[in-house]
């Protein structure tokens, strides 16, 4: 589903991604872990072209997406993205946050989008908030709306960029629960997170990224219980 070949990303002289090769298949839940500044968020952002790769190739459904003339908007419609800071649109109600893109991009009529919006809000347990504005929601609620908003475009892949890092501890669980449900439903997901317990429980594969390279990749058991790479061991000893 996503194939990454020799991905490099430089910001000026700073090399953030230093040759990443990765293959993410349909239905996989890939959790990316690593120290801060390791390039894991940049990796995720390269996948939906929020960052432009300096070198390398990214294929989504066998289409090379980081080539000139590719319609980036079409590519992004296949990929939902959830941000650390939620980035809900504060001037729109919750329902309008969810329906804006599908209606504007003519994926659905307004009525269809609202119906889908109601289903999605039910799924994230926020039906009663449809007419509220983002400022009236707690962080956990905002992030659940952000997930619903991304799902409204019926994406094939969901990308999560540290979705619980900006939350108060007591709200982390409700967001992770929604993500677990999503994983169970068979959604292909790439998740950058520091929630090791979640990674262990939900991931079909864990990637450890450090210094812009994938240092280790394997099932949660392999990576957490039996890390082979020295850096992985060091990192896990600090966070577990």
């Amino acid at each position: 589903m996503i194939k990454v070949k020799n991905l490099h990303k430089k910001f000026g002289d700073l090399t953030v991604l230093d040759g990443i090769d990765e293959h993410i298949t349909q239905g996989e839940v890939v959790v990316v872990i690593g120290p801060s500044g390791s390039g894991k968020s940049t990796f995720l952002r390269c996948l939906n072209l929020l960052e432009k790769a300096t070198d390398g190739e990214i294929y989504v459904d066998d289409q090379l997406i980081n080539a000139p003339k590719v319609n980036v908007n079409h590519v992004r419609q296949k990929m939902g993205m959830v941000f650390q800071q939620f980035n809900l649109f504060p001037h729109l109600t919750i329902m309008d946050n969810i329906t804006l893109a599908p209606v504007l991009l003519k994926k659905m009529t307004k009525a269809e989008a609202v119906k889908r919006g109601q289903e999605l809000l039910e799924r994230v347990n926020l039906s009663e908030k449809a007419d509220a504005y983002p400022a009236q929601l707690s962080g956990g609620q905002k992030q659940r709306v952000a997930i619903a908003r991304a799902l409204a475009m019926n994406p094939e892949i969901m990308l999560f960029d540290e979705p619980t890092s900006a939350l108060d501890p007591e709200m982390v669980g409700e967001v992770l629960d929604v993500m677990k449900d999503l994983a169970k439903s068979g959604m292909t997901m790439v998740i950058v997170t520091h929630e090791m317990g979640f990674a262990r429980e939900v991931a079909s594969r864990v990637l450890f990224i450090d210094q812009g390279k994938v240092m280790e990749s394997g099932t949660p058991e392999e990576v957490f219980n039996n890390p082979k790479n020295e850096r992985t061991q060091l990192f896990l000893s600090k966070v577990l």
Partner: protein
Amino acid sequence: MTGIQVWFSDFCDLFEKCFIREERYKLLLSGIGVTIKVSLLAVIIGILIGMLIAMCNLSKRKLPRAIGGIYTDIIRGTPSVTQLMIIYFVIFATVNLDKWIIAAIAFGVNSGAYVSEIIRGGILSVDHGQTEAGRSLGLNAFQTMTRIVIPQAVKNIFPALCNEFIVLIKETAIVGYVGLMDIQKAGDFIKSATFEAFMPLVGTAVIYYVLIKILTLSLRQVEKHLRKSDAR
């Protein structure tokens, strides 16, 4: 008669002489019309030019940025009376347009430079995460700008824009320089005709004040409406 009664009766005579006699109030009324006409059209032109110049200044390319920079620089560096007279007597000298429209263009051109800076600041004040969220949903740059960034920017810049419009209305008091009879010119005319300074000039001030007060109060209502989504 007591002193106050004398003063009051003098005041009424003066009022009658300056505003009622020879239907002088009609001058002021038509002056109000001119001021409003010129200001309204100027505001619209100012916003359009302001958006255009703001886009130039926010552009990644050098040429639009240079154009925007030069425009703002020239407008800010010269007096508006001079600009008005250049536009009226030089640029539009041979063009057959209503005086008030030419004046409105001049004020719009002037206001555009200031509005562009307000708009630019407003757009930059919207968190970049908003743009990323819009683009990640598959919206293109234009859709993201018009549906997500600008509505939020408008809310942020609204007070500054209102202020600019109020300044603009008062600025139009110089249209007398190109022979338009606005409120200021009407007051001035009455002053010359009656040899009275106090009543016509204070009257002019009162009219401007009331106009701007009405505008301020209505804009405040609009702002309240805009801030609806801030409720917690």
